[in-house]
């Protein structure tokens, strides 16, 4: 078992005159499970392919296990990649698919057989070894693709949206299996996804990317609880965080946010840190509850029942809308007038540039 850190040092990438990655630096620790999370076109796949050696690096350095690799061909970097569409060799059996990379570097046949047997046992594909990819289901192909990475005993595993071709049930199952696999191997892993749930559930740290740059790097709970920017706050979490324009008053050093209709949310954000100009308060749905003594009046427009909880889409007196959360057995109906209590301790403030200000930890 090899474990290696991956360092990106001021890495840049251009396609023609368009810069898709600019001066990006990131250290991925040995054994870490990192997720690159972002909308399509944010550069996350390009970054992964640069680490794999499938895209050239126009500036900066990439080091794997301390060794500079950005000039090395893909095969010499010691990484294994699982592709979105699996990229299994269609004319080879599963066994030959797994053996291909090992044979190319001259591994002895008995060693190849031993490694494939081991990987097939872990992934429960031993009975598929003689089949061809065309005879496998989507989930089985996925396992073979992971097996092809596993037998190489690489310094790092690179996953490019590997679950996006699976149906919903299989995706959840494979997610758990990937988490289990990582706990077994403790190998450095980079996982590219646009699905926040995959990133949150699998990764030890998430790199949130948008428009060619890194928005935030942090643990899933840091990303969720203390989003660095408005983009992160909107992208991570479902439903997206509520944003309402506010005026801020000083209440013993902490910001007291006054909404358009005059109601007040007492945040725990220090006033001293806040800039001038327009501010918005950001509150997640679970911090807004229906209570008879709530300070914020509104009218329910849509009720979304999710079973364990209910999302209420509410229009406030000043015309702005937000999403509040209620229990699964909520009796609220569309058209009801409700009063909302906002938990100020978990509220954030955002300036005009989208930068976030949080309560002291």
């Amino acid at each position, binding site marked *: 078992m090899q474990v290696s850190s991956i360092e990106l040092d001021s890495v840049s990438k251009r396609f023609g005159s368009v810069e898709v990655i600019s001066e990006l630096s990131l250290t991925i620790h040995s054994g870490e499970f990192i997720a690159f999370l972002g909308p399509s076109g944010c550069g996350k796949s390009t970054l992964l392919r640069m680490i*794999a*050696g499938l895209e050239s690096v126009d500036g900066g350095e990439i080091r794997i296990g301390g060794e500079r690799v950005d000039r090395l061909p*893909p*095969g010499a970097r010691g990484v294994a*990649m699982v592709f979105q569409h699996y*990229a299994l*060799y269609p004319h080879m059996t599963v066994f030959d698919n797994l053996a*291909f*990379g090992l044979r*190319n570097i001259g591994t002895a046949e008995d060693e190849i057989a031993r490694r494939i047997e081991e990987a097939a046992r872990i992934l429960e594909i031993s009975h598929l070894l003689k089949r061809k990819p065309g005879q496998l289901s989507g989930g089985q192909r996925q396992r073979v693709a992971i097996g092809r990475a596993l037998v190489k005993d690489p310094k790092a595993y690179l996953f490019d949206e590997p679950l996006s071709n699976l149906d919903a049930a299989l995706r959840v199952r494979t997610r758990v299996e990937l988490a289990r696999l990582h706990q077994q191997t403790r190998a450095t892993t980079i996982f590219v996804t646009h699905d926040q749930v995959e990133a949150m559930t699998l990764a030890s740290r998430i790199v949130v990317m948008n428009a060619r740059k890194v928005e935030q790097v942090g643990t899933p709970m840091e990303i969720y609880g203390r989003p660095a920017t408005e983009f992160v706050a909107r992208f991570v979490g479902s439903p997206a965080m509520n944003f309402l324009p506010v005026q801020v008053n000083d209440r013993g050093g902490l910001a007291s946010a006054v909404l358009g209709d005059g109601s007040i949310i007492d945040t725990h954000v220090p006033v001293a840190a806040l800039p001038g100009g327009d501010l918005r308060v950001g509150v997640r749905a679970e911090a807004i509850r229906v209570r008879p003594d709530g300070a914020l009046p509104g009218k329910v427009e849509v009720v979304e029942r999710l079973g364990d909880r209910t999302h209420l889409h509410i229009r406030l007196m000043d015309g702005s809308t937000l999403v509040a959360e209620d229990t699964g057995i909520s009796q609220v109906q569309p058209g009801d007038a409700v009063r909302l209590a906002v938990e100020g301790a978990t509220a954030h403030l955002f300036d005009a540039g989208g930068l976030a200000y949080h309560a002291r930890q």
Partner: protein
Amino acid sequence: MTDATLSPGKAVAAVKRPTGASIGPRWSNALFVAPYMVFYVVLLVYPLFKGIWMSMLESDMFDDTSKFAGLANYYRLFNDKIFIGTVWNTVLFVLMTVPVFVAIGLLLALALNRSDRTSATLRAIFFGTSVLSVTIVTIIWKMMYMPGNGAIASLMRLLGLEPIAFITTASLALPAVAITTIWWIIGLPMMLFLAALQQIPGELYEAAALDNASRWRSFWSITLPSIRRTMLVVVIYEIVAQFQLFGQAQLLTQGGPNNASRPIVLFIYEQGFRSWNLGYAAAASEILFLIMAVAALAQFFASRKRVEE
């Protein structure tokens, strides 16, 4: 539930639905395939059997009489040294051209399988010759081959070599026709291979690069297996097409010198339309048909076995 149970013994085929739709054969449906069937029978099935019948007649086109002669035409053909020579020439020509069509067609496709402007221009140029008529092509190559002031002869003289008379040398006439043919229609196999190459997902080559595969290994393990079906199509198509060599040989060498480049179709043409031996020509056609069918079938079965593996 019991209401919905069908009464036993009721024939489903005879059920007439309230909407007027009925289950069972309706011969008016044959009208949909009739136009095709008419042309198929008139233009393919009828000539095929008419040809077989003609090959068993001894016809005289001058007084338009014919009498049944059984297999006499075939017997004569197998003892006709010129005909046996044309069969041999045609087989040789197929052996000279088909492997080259596959090899050079694939090489060109591999070299030009890029999206830059140069490749697009070259693709157009290589395919462009295919649209020329056989007359133009043979004129161009006659100017190349002429021993006096042809392009190749001039070049050889420039290099201080003695010019070679390609068309009038018995051993070089058929290869000269083969080269002309390859130059003329190499564009089609190239295009077929290009289409096949572009169907191969790029991810496979990326996976192979991460698997430390050399370019040769990628070609052998990914490219070749992926285009096997196209290769089969090219081989069968070219076998069938090249067995029918006619125009180039007629215009470039007239089958000469001393029948060295006379193909079967030229023999058929001369027997049928120059000597008016229609039955004899028909018999030669049937033999050509048999050879082509056997060659294509053999190739088809050999390749299908491998593809299925």
